[in-house]
């Protein structure tokens, strides 16, 4: 990419005692990009967000975010970034309107614009009807929507979203996904999306970085990662309706086969194999048992396949 990066880190490291939460992170994120930051709980995602916003100081390494050094220009930087924290972190004793209007003041928004902007967001996030109710009476989804509204209140250039759809119902999840797409696509904002929802990352992200024990173990588009990092194979096979249960049973006994799923009311089964070499073994076993095999089609690997392959590799190292 020819644009200068919005985020650029070199050897960014943060230790807490003996634990290295972020380990020599070298990363560049470009304007308008949705970068997925994948990792299991405790892999260093949240610590990275804190470091990039200047609320935590690194033990070693450097970072430049929107051209600013977070360690020395944290306040100036945070004026231009928005953060949705892992827990909604909204004040439950206040109303939605108060939560937003007070944060608008904290971002030094002009007083004459606050009412308009708050009203606009409350409508956009379907909270206008309950704007004057205390947040303690809101559902989890409503609190998360309010927290999202607060994160984009000051129209930040760079948005950090830490598990934005965690625990949300499908309708709210879809709404959040649409918002992320709009922010990046229509408004040209950069989104740093921390998630362990691999399906979400695959759908939304231009590139993904995979973090394991504080170290970045992969970076690229979901397809690049699948091509370069996954040695396995995703397959779809077709048999007869009467043999489909037996097929599933045999596949479950096969070492290296996982994510075995049967299509509803169809004699079709999908699965992932950890190695391509397992294909002849699979076919032999099915044929030997007398199961008719009408079709065996390779599928595009998912981010989930790649992620688990990487995770297993890293765990093996430990």
């Amino acid at each position, binding site marked *: 990419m020819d644009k200068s990066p919005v985020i650029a880190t070199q050897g960014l490291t943060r230790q807490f005692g003996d634990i290295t939460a972020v380990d020599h992170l070298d990363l560049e994120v470009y304007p308008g990009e949705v970068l997925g930051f994948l990792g299991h709980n405790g892999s260093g995602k949240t610590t990275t967000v804190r470091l990039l916003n200047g609320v935590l100081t690194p033990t070693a390494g450097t970072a430049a975010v929107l051209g600013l050094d977070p360690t020395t220009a944290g306040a100036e*930087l945070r*004026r231009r970034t928005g953060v949705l924290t892992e827990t909604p972190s909204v*004040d439950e004793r*206040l109303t939605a309107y108060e939560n937003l209007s*007070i944060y608008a*003041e*904290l971002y*030094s928004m002009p007083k004459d614009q606050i009412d308009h902007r708050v009203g606009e967001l409350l409508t956009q996030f379907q909270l206008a009807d309950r704007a004057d109710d205390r947040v303690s009476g809101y559902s989890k989804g409503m609190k998360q929507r309010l927290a999202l509204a607060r994160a984009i209140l000051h129209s930040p250039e760079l948005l950090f979203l830490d598990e934005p759809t965690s625990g949300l119902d499908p309708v709210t999840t879809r709404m959040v996904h649409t918002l992320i797409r709009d922010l990046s696509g229509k408004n040209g904002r950069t989104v740093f999306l921390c998630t362990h929802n691999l399906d979400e990352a695959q759908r939304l992200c231009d590139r993904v970085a995979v973090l394991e024990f504080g170290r970045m173990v992969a970076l690229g588009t979901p397809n690049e990662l699948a091509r370069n990092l996954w040695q396995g194979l995703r397959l779809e096979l077709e048999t007869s309706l009467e043999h489909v249960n037996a097929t599933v049973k045999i596949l479950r006994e096969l070492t290296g086969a996982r994510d075995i799923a049967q299509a509803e009311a169809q004699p079709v089964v999908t699965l992932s194999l950890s190695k391509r070499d397992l294909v002849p073994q699979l076919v032999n076993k099915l044929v030997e048992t007398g199961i008719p095999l009408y079709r065996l089609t390779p599928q595009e690997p998912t981010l989930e396949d790649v992620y688990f392959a990487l995770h297993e590799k890293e765990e093996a190292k430990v």
Partner: protein
Amino acid sequence: MNWQVIKAIVRRDLLAVSRSKGTLLPLILVPLIFMFLLPAGLGYFTPALSDMPGANMPDMAQFLDLLPREAMAEFETYSTDQLMIVFMLVYMLAPMFLIIPLMVATVIASDSFAGEKERKTLEALIYTPTTDMELFTGKLLSAWVPALVVSLVGFVLYGLTTNIAAWPTMGQIFFPNITWIVLVFWVAPATAAVGLGATVIVSSKANSAQDANQIAALVVLPIVALVIAQATGVMYFGTLITLILGVVFWVIAGVLLWIGVRTFRRSEIIARY
């Protein structure tokens, strides 16, 4: 420092406090007891108590020996009943008044510092473009200003109550004296600041507002010592002593707040989150 931002933090914290019954209740009840019920009862019933057979009245002679000449001159004009009322309402309860700013400051500060950590609302605040000093100042003021306001309102209420309740015996306005003015405008703000400093330090380690409040409330012990010293005649709570007490409290508050501001760094807070 951006005062619009500080004002927003104060507004936010005060709104939150005003909507918490658990926090609000002591802020109303304690001043009501100390500033209204107690003086009303003492002002009205003290003469009757002194007339009761077998009543053990405080050792007035020991207390009067400690009084400066000007005070002695003032006391000579009072009857025994009037002397009892002045002794109880003007002198005995004076150090007890300091419990009000101390209590208000510690209750609100515990809610603002440790309570916010407990409710997990501090993280979002930390990601705002406020500086550490703006955050700290906003949170301090949100506890200190109400402490002063409640003290002042309490003082006015106390003044009205004592003068009205004791009117049948006193027949004149006898409250406040200079010592009380010094107490309200010089020592009370310092006492609130001591409570704040202690709460900020305790809150950096405490996990809940209740824990912070319970530990920080230990700063009430010096006030209790003052009450005992006054009641036993060990010390006379005169204007000079009150002025010196204010200086001592301001120095203690300065030290505590200096330590407090050093613990209030967002990088340290978030690292413990």
